[in-house]
């Protein structure tokens, strides 16, 4: 069977104390699947189990028909033999090696592409001789991606790979990642909190909560609102009661706005609460923002 098939259980400690991570997934070969969910829901642990960095308490992992883990039969293939490219949240760049050497370290022994190719693709030619600690967050992330791809992996695991980048660089690297992924046809599992990133990169999304997969489907199936109205998630910053109305100052993304809501509705709210704001009918005015 092509792709990654897994069914694992592991007791882990997370944001909500100890819980059992229970995951069952069937990730098709050559596709990009994403793990989405709040912090502490077990996404990174699951990625580490797939990579072989953590062992499940029980279960099986089969990739392209080859068992990587089978707890019943005592099978555990170490991470070195799984041919995985992994981008860590903290990048894990080797501090004593230059950018060039970090990438070269990952190249397989017999390989027809050289470091120069990855330096060029990930726009790292100018910093090839620099040490990781002298790079910006975005450059570090690109080095981590380049190193993961240089391994020429059959499975690419990305733990929030674009989280430290600004929106322009994120868009550029998303497209680059998409192009590389499509060219190489690497099966990819991506952990991300960014819905736009998931829409761009993932064909399938597993939504996780408290260690379990609560739903899965295409990004559209998972994220599109079931109603036709526009829904925004906002954080309440402050509220001012004005008779029967309450003026609530909310943050929506990078914007701060003030809304008038009814006093009884506003009474239980306290600053810091997350609100879902729905607009039932409207005629949007759409303007393209310049990225530079």
């Amino acid at each position: 069977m092509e792709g990654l098939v897994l069914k694992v259980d592991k007791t882990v400690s997370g944001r909500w104390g100890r819980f059992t991570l229970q995951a069952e997934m069937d990730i098709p070969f050559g596709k990009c699947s994403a793990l989405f969910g709040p912090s502490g829901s077990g996404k990174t642990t699951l990625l580490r189990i797939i990579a072989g960095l953590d062992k499940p308490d029980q279960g099986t992992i089969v990739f392209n028909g080859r068992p990587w883990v089978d707890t019943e039969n005592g099978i555990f293939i170490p991470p070195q033999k799984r041919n995985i490219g992994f981008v860590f949240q903290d990048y894990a760049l080797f501090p004593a090696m230059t950018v060039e050497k970090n990438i070269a370290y990952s190249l397989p022994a017999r390989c027809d592409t050289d470091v120069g190719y990855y330096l060029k693709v990930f726009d790292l030619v100018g910093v090839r001789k620099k040490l990781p600690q002298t790079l910006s967050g975005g450059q570090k992330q690109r080095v981590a991606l380049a190193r993961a791809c240089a391994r020429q992996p059959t499975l690419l695991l990305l733990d929030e790979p674009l989280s430290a980048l600004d929106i322009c660089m994120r868009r550029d690297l998303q497209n680059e990642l998409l192009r590389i992924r499509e060219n190489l046809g690497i099966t990819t599992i991506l952990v991300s909190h960014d819905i736009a990133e998931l829409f761009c990169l993932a064909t399938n999304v597993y939504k996780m909560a408290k260690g379990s997969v609560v739903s899965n489907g295409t990004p559209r199936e998972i994220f599109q609102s079931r109603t036709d109205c526009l829904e925004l998630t906002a954080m309440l910053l402050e509220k001012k009661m004005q008779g029967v109305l309450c003026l609530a100052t909310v943050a929506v993304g990078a914007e701060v706005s003030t809304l008038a809501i009814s006093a009884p509705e506003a009474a239980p709210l306290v600053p810091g609460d997350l609100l879902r704001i729905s607009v039932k009918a409207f005629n949007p005015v759409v303007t393209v923002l310049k990225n530079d």
Partner: protein
Amino acid sequence: MTIDPTPFILTIKLAAITVIALFLVGMPLVCWLFFSKSLSSLIVRASIHLPLVLPPVVIGFYLMVFFSPSFFVGAFLAKWFHLQINFTFTGLVIGSVVFNIPFMVNPVLGGLEGLSPSLYEASFLTGKGKTATFFKVLLPSVRPSVFTGCILTIAHTIGEFGMVLMIGGKIPGVTKVASIALYDEVESLNFSNAHFYSLILLGMSSFLILILFIVNKRFARIC
């Protein structure tokens, strides 16, 4: 005042050989201690701390007994390899290596434990094993700790007395190092010579500590 430079030459030679030997022996040991989760590694880890708490003369005494012809190890070395360890420069080197293990191993282990585990995990995921990961990724990442270990080893070798006297004696030109020469001068009431030896040893130790601070500060600025 006539000063024999031989004890200083011997001391420097002993320190140089000890630091090289200890690096070659100590780094594979550190690699094993760092990655191993076995009980044996825990026992070894605890036992290499012994030289920190035991009087050096005790280590010297047991090493002397260990390599004496009346004990099977000494007898074996003498019979099959015609090797005598006690009261030779080789004996001094062995004693010095044993005595200095914690001073080399502990700073490096401490440095490694301060690194993020994702560093060696990332190396494993590129297909490299523990040994390659240790020598190519981890050890270069803790260069200041390795340097500290080397300097501490040299400094302790220069200053060691009890263990050196016990296993090496004080054979001029062979095992009579600077600290023992100083003791001899005091015993002979040659205080001017003793002052000279002391000042040179004080200068050497101060220089090493200064180098340690300068280099560590430089590493801190780079990293």
